[in-house]
Structure formats: structure tokens, C-alpha cells
């Protein structure tokens, strides 16, 4: 293309993006159309990808199309496999996109649409995409090594150990929070519970079909399973209307929590082919389809956002979770802006499938941009509701009260008018008994999604079906993460225990399987139980804990990346990872400090424990006090460990830059590719 035309086109995209970001940032008063967010995001991603990722590729990483990747050198037809770049992109995106980019932005919408949108855009372009890209490339240059192995090789044993412990900790907290989101979405909801319960026999049927009837036809059976799930959603309304059936599928939060723990244990200890593998396929099928549908729906219907740009809760008094915009908006939205967990995937399966080094840019940087776009869609879904409705759904009973009239009055007194009758009518429209106190983000997202679709596809009559479709979609893939995550954590613990006593490391030895499964389920089950029993709804304490641990893992990943960049003699460009690292250290350490020591009992774990200890004691109070102290201790331990990695990394950097240490990267030797390098 003619260079002048190219310059003009990119100038126009940049100008359009600037106008859209300006409109999103400066608009006050009247509601804004969602298209402004879509245009701002599209232009930011386009400019970020075209210029920033190219700068990183050319100046820092010097991607080499002549260098053979591990997929080529070590190809074995199993783990290592040269794969088409679009296929790797899709595979990588499917692995990184979970409930995080949907739930976090919905919760952060209590500050208004602006903070979340700005953090998602800036965080993704300058931090999240960069992290995923550089870690992927560094893993490719090290035969597909994992983050923990790279941390050990490049920073030292402390780095490797901390990365390992951080991964286990984040997995456990994540699984506890994810399970809590499902509990809050399904409690007292016979329709939702019936639909999710039906996915079990559907998955079993799929398993038998795959094994006995049409072996290996996964896409075909997933489509069939999807049709059956739609039928289950349709049937759910009749279950909820039938008194005896409704009673059968109506569970309290503690009962659901116990059922989910039993499910998690069984899923971790049983063979996967019968139930888990088909459910995983079904969940992926629904996830990809729904995300695509939501993207098309938002662009075509371009709904209006009713949430203001900034709410009064930027002062830290928010009902969804307590804490000021800094640092809490930045740990509430992790996936969608930057997520340390992605570094595990960028150094897991993906580097073993990359055909050329040059493709890491599209896969690493590009797939994270796609996930960031999902987060923007979640912000839109949360903000299309009237703010009063959003706060009625997301505020715990401990803040607004149990009685609908009292809750509506409290929320209206904040300046977000809503009535008990409005909420009753909405609950009726979506086929629920009540929508008050449905914390966790999933129900609010489902209402937003149903709101967007019902305005064009089916109108109010289909509102309930859209709502339950969204609930099913979220619950299904959260449950998939629960079983997959429990297994991954079990394998990690077994690997470690194998060094102590060999049989414990054998993944086929049943005593070890049962013991380690019980250990992992017990650990995340503890956090789930704590959340279910928390008078403030659980999300208030657990989601920040999850956000902190996830961002601390990103801190470890960025330490590894900065160390390697300095060792590559690219110290003058180290700011590319060092600035996001400094930001994350500021965010996570400040958030951790507040969560541990803030004097406000809604924010600080220890302050809440003190307030409770000063009041009347009951067994429940003693438990909540212990839980608060435990959460403070977990936060403290994570911070201390990451501080060790930071100190160890800084010692490396100073040593190398002062010449006291040799700058030696531990890459695999260069081997020329057998492929002809394509142009571009």
C-alpha cells in the first residue's frame, strides 16, 4: 500500500480513537451510547497492535523468522506440533478467556463505566498484552518452559519457588471465588439449578456418544449437546412453575456449596472421559458462541448506558465491594486488563504449537486484546441497566437489608432510584423469585445480557430465557474451571509430594489421588464456605483476595520478563515491562495493605475482626473473626513472597547493569528453520 495512504489511514484511526476516548472520558449528564466504548476500544487496540507491539517485536525481542521454534525442532505429534497461527490464536484465546473478564468489570461498574473502561484499555495495551506476548516468546525460545521453570532459571530458586506457591494459592482462591459466584447465581433459583443439573446427564450422553456411537466427533456432539442444553433452559421454566419440582431444585447457599464441593471432589478423582471432557467441550462451545453473539448484539443494537461515568462510590463506600477507586478498581479487573494467570498459559501449551517466532505477536498480544474486548462487552452489559437495579442486584443484604422495601429505599437514598415493585417485576420477567442481594456479578451480567437481547430478539417474552441462558453459560464454564482447576492443582501438589515420597507423585495411584483431591477441594471449599457464611456476601473479601493474588502472579511474570530483557542487553527498553511492573507493585501492595490494616472494618480484614471481637460472641462470630485473620495472613504471606522475588530480581538487574554479574540468558541454541520465511 502506498505509504502516504497508510499514514493517512492510521492517522484517521488514531484521531477517531482519540475522539471516542475523549467522549467516553468527558461525557457527563446524559446517558452515553455503547458504540462510543466500542469505537474507542477498537481504535486503541488497532493502534496498540500496529505500533506498540511492532515496536516491542522489532526493538526489544527482535523476533527472528529464521529461528526454528520448539514446535518444529521437537515435533512429536502430541505436545510439540507446528500449527497454523490462526488455530493457535483460537486455541490460546479459548484457554485465557474465562469468567474473569465478565465478572470483574461487572463488579467494578459500581464506580461507573469510566474507571473500568480506561483501565481495561490502557491495562491491556500497555501491560496485559505485553506480558502475554513477551512471556510467550521467552517460553518459545526456551523449548516451551513454564513460568516457574523460567523464574528458577533466570531469577533463581526463590523465584521458582514463589512462582510455584503463587500459582497454587491463586488457583485455590480462584476456585473458591468461582464456586461462590455459581452459588450466588443459583441459590433459590429452581430454573437455573435445573438447567445446570441437566448439563450432567447431557454430558454423560455426550461421553457415551463420543466413545461408542461416533468416536471422536466432538464438534458434532457438542452441537447436539448445545441443542439439548437449550431444551433444558426451555424446560426450566416449567420446573420453576411446578410446585413440587421447584421445591426439588430450590437450594440454599450452604447446600449448594456442599453440592459443589462434592462435585469438585468427584470431578478431580474420577476418569475424565465420561463427564468432564464432554462438559469441557460443551462449555467451550457455549462460551465461544455466546461471546460472538454478545459482540454482534452490542454492535448491532448499540444500547444506551444508564450508569453514570463516575458514581459517588469512587470514595470507597461502595456496596458491591468496599475500597477506593485506587487501588481497588485495578485489582477487581484483572482478566481483561492484565492477568498473571495468562502467563501460565503463554508458557504452557501455546509455545509448543507456534510455527514461527514472528507469530507470537499475533497470538500473545492479539489474543489478550480479544479478551480485553470481552471485558468491554461486560462493562456494557452491566451499565445498560438502570443503576438502581444494578445496585439492588449486587448489594449484599448486610449493607442494604433483607426486606425489599428497605433495600430499595437504601439504594434510592444513594441517588439511584429503584422500587421494590420494579425489582419484583424484573424478577418476574426473568423467571426468578427475587433479584435482590444476588452478589457475585453473574446475575447482574445475565440481566444486562438479557436486557440487550430482549430488546430486539423476542422482546420481553424471551427475557427470562435470555437471562437463564446467560446464567447457564456462566455457571457452566465456571464449573468447568472448577473441575479443570482442581485437577491442575492436584497434579502440581502430587508433583511436589513425589519428591518427598515417590508413590504420592504417581497420578494413577488412587490413595494419592484421593488424598490430594481432598486437600485441594478442602482448601478452596474453605474459602467458598467462608464466602457463603459472610454477612457481607463473601465477594467483598474474596474477590479482592483473588485480584491481589492474580496481580501478584503478574508481578512475578513481569519480573521474569524484565530480567530476561536486561540480560538480552536491551536495558534501555526495559521500561516496557518495568513500568507495568511498577504499577502493579503499587496497586497490589497498596491493596494488600488496605485489606490487612485499613481501619474501616468493611475494607480491612483485621479491623473487621477487631470490631466483631468487641461485640457479642457466638460460634459464627468466632468463625468470621478467624476467617478475617486468615485472609489477612494469606495476603501478607503472598506479599512477602513477591517481595522476595522483587528483591532477587533487582539484585540480578543491578548486578548485570553494574557489570558485576554476567548477562547470560538461558535460551535454547539457534537452529535455522526448515520453513521458508514468508514476507511480512
Amino acid at each position, binding site marked *: 500500500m502506498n505509504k502516504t495512504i497508510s499514514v493517512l489511514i492510521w492517522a484517521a484511526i488514531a484521531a477517531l480513537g482519540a475522539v471516542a476516548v475523549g467522549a467516553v472520558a468527558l461525557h457527563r449528564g446524559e446517558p452515553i451510547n455503547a458504540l462510543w466504548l466500542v469505537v474507542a476500544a477498537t481504535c486503541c487496540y488497532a493502534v496498540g497492535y500496529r505500533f506498540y507491539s511492532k515496536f516491542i517485536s522489532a526493538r526489544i525481542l527482535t523476533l527472528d523468522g529464521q529461528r526454528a521454534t520448539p514446535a518444529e525442532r521437537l515435533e512429536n*505429534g*502430541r*505436545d510439540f*506440533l507446528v*500449527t*497454523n497461527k*490462526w*488455530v493457535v*490464536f*483460537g*486455541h490460546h484465546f*479459548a*484457554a*485465557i*478467556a*474465562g*469468567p*474473569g473478564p465478565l465478572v470483574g468489570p461487572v463488579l467494578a461498574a459500581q464506580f461507573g463505566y469510566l474507571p473500568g473502561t480506561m483501565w481495561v484499555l490502557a491495562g491491556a495495551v500497555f501491560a496485559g498484552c505485553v506480558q502475554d506476548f513477551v512471556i510467550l516468546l521467552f517460553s518459545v525460545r526456551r523449548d516451551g518452559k513454564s513460568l516457574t521453570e523460567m523464574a528458577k532459571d533466570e531469577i533463581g530458586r526463590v523465584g521458582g519457588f514463589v512462582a510455584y506457591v503463587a500459582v497454587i494459592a491463586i*488457583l485455590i482462591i*480462584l476456585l473458591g471465588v*468461582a464456586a461462590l459466584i455459581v452459588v450466588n447465581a443459583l441459590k433459590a433459583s429452581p430454573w437455573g439449578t435445573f438447567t445446570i443439573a441437566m448439563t450432567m446427564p447431557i454430558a454423560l450422553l455426550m461421553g457415551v456418544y*463420543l*466413545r*461408542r456411537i461416533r*468416536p*471422536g*466427533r*466432538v*464438534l458434532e456432539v*457438542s452441537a447436539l449437546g448445545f441443542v439439548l442444553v437449550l431444551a433444558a433452559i426451555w424446560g426450566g421454566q416449567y420446573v420453576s412453575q411446578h410446585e413440587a419440582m421447584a421445591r426439588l431444585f430450590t437450594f440454599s447457599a450452604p447446600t449448594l456449596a456442599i453440592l459443589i464441593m462434592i462435585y469438585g471432589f468427584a470431578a478431580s478423582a474420577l*476418569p*475424565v*472421559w465420561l463427564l*468432564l*471432557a464432554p462438559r469441557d*467441550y460443551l462449555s*467451550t*462451545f457455549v462460551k*465461544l458462541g455466546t461471546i460472538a453473539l454478545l459482540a454482534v448484539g452490542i454492535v448491532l443494537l448499540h444500547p444506551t448506558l444508564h450508569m453514570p461515568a463516575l458514581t459517588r462510590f469512587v470514595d470507597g463506600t461502595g456496596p458491591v465491594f468496599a475500597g477506593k477507586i485506587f487501588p481497588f478498581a485495578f485489582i477487581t479487573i*484483572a*482478566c481483561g486488563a492484565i*492477568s498473571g*494467570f*495468562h502467563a*501460565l*498459559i503463554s508458557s*504452557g*501449551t501455546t509455545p509448543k504449537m507456534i510455527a514461527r517466532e514472528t507469530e507470537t505477536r499475533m497470538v500473545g498480544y492479539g489474543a489478550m486484546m480479544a479478551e480485553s474486548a470481552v471485558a468491554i462487552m461486560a462493562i456494557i452489559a452491566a451499565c445498560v441497566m438502570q443503576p438502581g437495579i444494578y445496585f439492588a442486584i449486587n448489594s449484599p443484604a448486610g449493607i442494604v437489608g433483607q426486606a425489599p422495601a428497605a433495600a430499595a429505599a437504601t439504594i434510592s437514598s444513594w441517588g439511584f432510584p429503584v422500587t421494590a415493585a420494579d425489582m419484583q417485576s424484573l424478577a418476574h420477567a426473568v423467571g426468578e423469585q427475587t433479584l435482590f442481594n444476588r452478589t457475585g456479578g453473574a446475575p447482574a451480567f445475565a440481566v444486562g445480557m438479557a436486557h440487550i437481547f430482549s430488546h430486539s430478539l423476542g422482546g420481553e417474552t424471551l427475557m427470562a430465557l435470555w437471562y437463564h441462558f446467560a446464567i447457564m453459560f456462566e455457571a457452566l464454564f465456571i464449573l*468447568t*474451571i472448577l473441575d*479443570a*482447576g482442581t*485437577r*491442575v492443582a492436584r*497434579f502440581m501438589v502430587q508433583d511436589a509430594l513425589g519428591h518427598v515420597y515417590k508413590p504420592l507423585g504417581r*497420578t494413577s495411584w488412587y490413595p494419592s489421588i484421593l488424598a490430594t483431591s481432598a486437600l485441594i477441594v478442602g482448601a478452596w471449599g474453605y474459602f467458598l464456605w467462608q464466602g457463603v457464611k459472610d454477612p457481607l456476601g463473601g465477594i467483598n473479601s474474596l474477590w479482592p483476595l*483473588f485480584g491481589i493474588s*492474580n496481580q501478584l502472579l503478574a508481578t512475578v511474570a513481569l519480573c521474569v520478563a524484565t530480567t530476561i530483557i536486561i540480560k538480552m542487553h536491551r536495558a534501555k527498553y526495559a521500561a516496557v515491562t518495568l513500568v507495568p511492573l511498577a504499577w502493579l507493585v503499587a496497586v497490589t501492595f497498596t491493596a494488600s495493605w488496605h485489606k490487612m490494616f485499613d481501619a474501616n472494618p468493611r475494607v480491612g480484614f483485621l479491623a473487621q475482626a477487631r470490631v466483631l471481637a468487641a461485640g457479642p460472641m457466638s460460634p459464627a462470630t468466632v468463625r468470621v473473626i478467624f476467617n478475617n485473620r486468615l485472609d489477612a495472613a494469606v495476603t501478607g504471606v503472598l506479599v512477602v513472597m513477591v517481595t522476595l522475588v522483587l528483591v532477587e530480581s533487582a539484585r540480578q538487574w543491578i548486578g548485570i547493569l553494574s557489570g558485576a554479574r554476567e548477562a547470560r540468558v538461558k535460551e535454547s541454541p539457534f537452529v535455522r528453520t526448515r520453513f521458508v520465511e514468508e514476507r511480512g
Partner: protein
Amino acid sequence: MRRMLKKIGAFAETGIAVLREIFDEAAYARFLNRAGMVSSSESYAAFRREFEEAKTRRPKCC
């Protein structure tokens, strides 16, 4: 027109290849090729056995 149809065809082909990889159909085809087997209940069971541990060790993000 023909060029456009060709492009649409290539796009659809890539889309299907992506789905086949995500849904492990491509991995099964590679397994059959490597093991010199044809698709059957037994070969799918053998594939799952080999594939299970690797697949379930892969983390999925939040």
C-alpha cells in the same frame, strides 16, 4: 466474485480448523495417523488415555 468466494472458502476452512483444534478433533486425527489406526471405539479410548493427562494438566484462565 470468484476471488471473493475463494476468500470466504479459505476463511471458513481456517475457522473449521480452529474449531477442530479447540475441540481436539485434530489431535485425534493426528493420533490415528501416528498410531496407524482407524477411528473406532477402541482407538478413541486409547487416544483419550494418552491425551487425558496432558489435557487435564493444562491450566485454563479465570
